[in-house]
């Protein structure tokens, strides 16, 4: 078959969703953010709700998420995205509202906003990217940094005696009556990415039914912050992050907490 006929439109089996813009991503090579963006964009596309969706970008690596996600968006102050989303949803309850936040934004400076939005059961989707580090500021310790894991502010490794333990905020918010669907996913393989997209789509469908807060955590990598190449970072993530942050549903509609909410299995 000639090359030209292979790339003709009728042979197209997969294309970029229109909910992603054509702008070149600023993320480091191998970073999970791009895939996570795309899975969210595809979920919005599949539901046909692009024109009814309003997103909130955080402060962190994904501060410019609105460059790439082709929906109306607001840029929040550091950690305040769930409060901004609350303000949006309260005045436009018929719209689909999501926040897209990293671990520092959501689980350190924004802990209060996260917990209280979840506790009020705000009808929003929180997409939580957990890579265990502050990426944008250059690889400092995050609330989710693993014990012993090195960062620029714990160069000898996180010492839990003086620096505290990693915060499993996803398990924490799953305990609140206001949350409806809480799950932990990853996007480092095609299969995992598809699962993550399904989770985000489900969460947006629940939002239409006003079921309460849905939180989809994506355990992700940070090749630059972890000082690894992309392949090694994914391997390291599987070997070190997943045992501490196990993938799977944590709170499921109709069934409540999975495994007592202890972890995602």
């Amino acid at each position, binding site marked *: 078959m000639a090359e030209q006929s292979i790339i003709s439109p009728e042979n197209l089996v997969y294309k970029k969703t229109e909910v992603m813009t054509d702008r070149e991503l600023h993320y480091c090579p191998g970073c999970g953010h791009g895939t996570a963006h795309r899975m969210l964009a595809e979920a919005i596309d599949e539901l046909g709700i692009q*024109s009814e969706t*309003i997103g909130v970008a955080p402060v962190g690596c994904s*501060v410019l998420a609105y460059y790439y996600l082709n929906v*109306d968006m607001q840029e929040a102050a550091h950690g305040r995205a769930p*409060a*901004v989303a609350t*303000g949006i949803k309260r005045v436009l309850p018929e*719209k689909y509202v999501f926040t897209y936040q990293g671990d520092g934004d959501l689980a350190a400076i924004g802990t209060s906003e996260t917990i209280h939005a979840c506790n009020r059961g705000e009808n929003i989707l929180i997409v939580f990217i957990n890579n265990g580090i502050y990426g944008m500021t250059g690889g400092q310790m995050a609330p989710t940094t693993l014990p012993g894991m090195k960062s620029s502010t714990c160069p000898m490794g996180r010492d839990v005696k003086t620096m505290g333990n990693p915060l499993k905020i996803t398990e924490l918010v799953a305990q609140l009556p206001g949350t409806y669907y809480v799950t932990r996913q990853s996007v480092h393989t095609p299969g995992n990415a598809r699962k993550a997209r399904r989770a985000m789509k489900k969460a947006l469908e629940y939002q239409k039914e006003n079921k309460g807060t849905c939180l989809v955590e994506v355990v992700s990598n940070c090749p630059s912050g972890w000082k690894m190449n992309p392949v090694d970072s994914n391997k390291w993530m599987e070997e070190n992050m997943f045992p501490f942050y196990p993938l799977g549903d944590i709170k499921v509609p109709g069934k409540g907490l999975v495994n007592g909410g202890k972890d995602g299995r």
Partner: protein
Amino acid sequence: MTKEIRLMKGNEAMAEAAILAGVDAYFGYPITPQSEIIEYLMSANTAERTGMQVLQAESEIASINMVYGAAGCGKRALTSSSSPGISLKMEGISYLAGAELPCVIVNVVRAGPGLATIQPSQSDYFQAVKGGGHGDYKLIVLAPSTVQESVDFMRLAFDLAFRYRNPVMILTDGIIGQMMEKVELFEQQPRLSEAPEWATRGKKPGEKSTVVTSLHLESEDMEQVNLRLQAKYREVEKNEVRFESYRCEDAEVLFVAFGSSARIARKAMDLARMKGIRAGLLRPITLYPFPVDEVRRLAGQVSGMLTVEMNAGQMVEDVRLAVNGRTPVEHFGRFGGMIPGPDETLKALESRLEEWHKKQPAQAE
């Protein structure tokens, strides 16, 4: 038709005015001496009356960010607090100013610094008129001196906020917030039905998405944003100066005071007149934009100016800037929640008269 006159507490009157002004949403957090605002709204059945959303947030920080979200959707959003709470809101206020979002923030000022006291004060003047948060920005600041003005300024504040896409602060204090006066309420205004073009309401098919942000990574872009903001502030300074003058026509000496202090200064002015001292009173209503031209004009007429403030001397700096050395400008204040009396205010004026008169009195040219 006779207008309805009601006896209302300042805070409650502002809350009712917010409903009547067609405000879409209020987000707040309790703090004395302004908690009546959220209490009133929570019991006023706003959802049924106008559809106004009222939410008690988990913090001042969350509430100002909820305001940001609602304002970003082109809705009329309101929050209120008192001094320590306003400090917490300052991060969000800077973001609102940077993203050019309209909203109204009420500060029922209590004395500071720190937790201090719940008693009335005007010690947040600097914070209100000089920006307060980080970055080069301005709030439009309205200072009511009566419960009636507290009501009227709620509507005016939203008009100005949307006209300039800028946060507006109503700077009042525990006296006006807590006292009862008769008020005439205005008619119910409709809530906004149309979305401004800058609002996030969902991307229209075929059109570019709308983004509300204060982030501009390129310095060239950020400078342009700053220049645009400054141009806007010059427009505000040109168009929106508001003040009130009492007996300034023949005044030889001048009180300058705002808010509740202006009421005390006015009494002191009357007492001075009874003693044959030709005193006048200038009451700035907009603290930003400050009535610079009027102060400058009066500087050519009077032999001295005395600001009366419930603080250690804040507005006096703006008066001095306007006067630019043409006439003496001094400050009289009580602070920490103490309220100056008319007699001591008059004494403060009298104690300066001799020195002022010794100097060459400025002549109106």
